[in-house]
Structures are given as structure tokens and as C-alpha cells.
């Protein structure tokens, strides 16, 4: 035991070190979130929290479960690839509770957003100048928005 003679202060110091390490582990256990490090250097539970946010656009499949007549009309026309909520706006609230009635869009404003003529738009895209093409008349006076093609029986 002569080796450890007068070495008590070293053992006391080592004991203090171990104690401090234990306190560190306990504190760390309480302040680091449980899921931190589950997938990487972040809180794994946050992925589920972000995924749990409510949806506002119901998606066209949801619309078509009830409005199959409009979907059928649309599928044969030029607007077949335009989803319902592209024009009607976010309507998950209406899909959840059909008694909440959506407001019909004003075609004079709505159609112009896409179809106002501009040299910057792709050449093949149908465009009109709203200032000269029956100004002030809502587009759906002549064109049926769900099937707007001239040969689709939509326009008069």
C-alpha cells in the first residue's frame, strides 16, 4: 500500500470528478428532449408535429367523390388538367362540413389571371386582351369554365 501513501487527495479529486459527471448525465437527461437523436441531430418528434398540421386544400380526389358530374364535364374539356381548387380556392373546410358553402369565384377576375394576353406567356397558351374582348362581361356569360373549348359545346 506504500504506493498509495499520501494519495488520498487524488482519490477525493477523482470522486468529485465522477460526481460532477453523474450530475451532468442527470441534468442532460432532463433537458434534452426524449426523441433528440432518434433519426439524427434533431428532435425526431418534430417530424410528427409538422406532419400533424391541418390541411386547407382538400385535393381534387376529395372533391370528385361528391362532384363527379362536374369532374366528368371537366375531364373531356380543355380544363381537364386544372384541379378544382386551382379556381375555387382552398376548400378542405367545405369537404369536412358540406354546410359551409364556398363563394363562387368572379370569372371576370379569375379567368384573366391565367388568360390575359402577354408576350411573356408561352405562345401556344390561349390568351385574350380583357380590355378589348367584351370588357366588363363575366367570362362565364359565353364560356363554360368546366369545359371552355369552342368545340366542346361550352361556348355559344
Amino acid at each position: 500500500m506504500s504506493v498509495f501513501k499520501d494519495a488520498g487527495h487524488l482519490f477525493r479529486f477523482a470522486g468529485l470528478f465522477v460526481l460532477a459527471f453523474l450530475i451532468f448525465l442527470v441534468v442532460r437527461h432532463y433537458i434534452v428532449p426524449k426523441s433528440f437523436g432518434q433519426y439524427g441531430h434533431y428532435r425526431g418528434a418534430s417530424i410528427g408535429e409538422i406532419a400533424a398540421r391541418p390541411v386547407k386544400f382538400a385535393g381534387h380526389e376529395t372533391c370528385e367523390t361528391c362532384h363527379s358530374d362536374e369532374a366528368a364535364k371537366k375531364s373531356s374539356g380543355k380544363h381537364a388538367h386544372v384541379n378544382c381548387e386551382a379556381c375555387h380556392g382552398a376548400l378542405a373546410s367545405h369537404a369536412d362540413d358540406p354546410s359551409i358553402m364556398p363563394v363562387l369565384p368572379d370569372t371576370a377576375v379569375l379567368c384573366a389571371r391565367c388568360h390575359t394576353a402577354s408576350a411573356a406567356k408561352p405562345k401556344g397558351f390561349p390568351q385574350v386582351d380583357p380590355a378589348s374582348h367584351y370588357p366588363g362581361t363575366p367570362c362565364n356569360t359565353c364560356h363554360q369554365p368546366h369545359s371552355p373549348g369552342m368545340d366542346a359545346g361550352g361556348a355559344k
Partner: protein
Amino acid sequence: MKISRRQMLILLPAAAVAWESVMAGTPEDAPNYKMTGHWWGMLIDIPKCIGCGNCVRACQTENDVPDGYFRTWVERYHRSDWPMSESGDVTPNPLIAPEVISPDGGKEGFPAATDESGKYFFVPKMCNHCAESPCTQVCPVGATFISPDGVVLVDQTYCLGCAYCVQACPYGCRYVHPEKKVADKCTLCYHRITKGLTTACCEACPTGARQLVDLKNPNDPIHAFLKTHSVQVLKPQMATGAKLFYNDLDGSVR
């Protein structure tokens, strides 16, 4: 069994470490969605974009994006040096910077183009959901990360709002939320894609210029598209592993 004080001192930290690994790992919140089965990205078909701003408005509605801030926005480019004149005396000049406008992020569309000459096109922009994302690498607290399905997300309860990530993003896709004071960005509508829906911008796009793609889905049309089209990412020299693919992108786009 007798445990000496010294053995106890050795056992306690070991037990603490073991307990921590037991407590780690809570089950996922979306039970039918397997994160390991997806690798999300987006395809933007430049020739189809008409600059209507539907995506910008839809994103703002879906994600409560504050006015003046954008998770996605649309830019209109105008290259006056293109195309070459028939006599050949005007050549494409890379030193002439293209004119780029994006009034209010293109939310209410664009003013009608008056100059008929040159070449116009629209470039929708948003988070590139990089596989080697610079923004997640600089976060000092582990508040932003790439999820196992390839979406760059922000844990807003953990974010300090230091804005390092805002500076690190080479595409300018992040901002500090003016009310929450934490980093905010495109989540690729993570709350929608995990439920089997497409993103709000893709849902609202009237021409199909935007398409959500799942690179791990062998039936996704993106695979056939990538085979037959010339597809670019923005700033490829930065090796960010961007997953926002642009079809028919002009070389002047930065």
C-alpha cells in the same frame, strides 16, 4: 448480491447511458406513412408555366405565410440578347444580365410584357430540398434537418432564430418569421404529402408546371421524364444535391 461503493460508482453512469437509449425513440405520428419508403423532390416544367401566381397564393393560404414573405415565388426573366438576328450580328451575350422581375413574388401575376423582342420565361422558385443541404449544416442547435424522406424541415420549437440558415441557403428560400421570430421555409407541404396528397402549389397549378415527385417510387412518372428530357438543377456547382428539377431551364437563370 453485494455491491461495493466503487462498483456502484461505475455502474451508475453505465445505467444512465443505457436508460437514455431505452427512452429514445417514440413511434411516428402518421402510422400508415413509412418515411423510409419515400425520397421527395419536385419537377418544374418551365415551358408550361404561365406566371399566374396560383402557386404563390395557394402556398400562402395553406401555410399561413405572412404578407411580403414567400416559401415559393415566381420570377419572370427577359433575355433581350435572344434570339440571334437573322443577319447574325447579334449573338447571345452572357455579359448582358437578364431582366428579372417578381412583383410581390408574382402573387398577383405579372404586368403585361410590352417589349415583344427577346425571350421571356417564368421561373417558379422554392426550397430545393437539397440532399446535402447547406442550411441544415450551419444550424448550431439541431433545429433544422433533412428528414429521412428527404424533406428539409425546421423544428420551430427548437429554433433560436439566429438566421444562420437564412444566410447559408444559396437559393434564398428561408426567412425569419416576423411574428414567431424563428426560421420558416417550405416544408414541401409535409402535412399533406404524408397523408397521400400533393403539395398546395402543385394542387393549385393550372398547367401542371409543378409536379411533386417521389424518387423512391418506381412507378413515379419522373423516372421516364428524367430519361427523355434535359433537366437541370439550380447552382449545380455548389453540389447541394438539389431535388428541385427544372425542365428546359435557360442558362441565364441563377
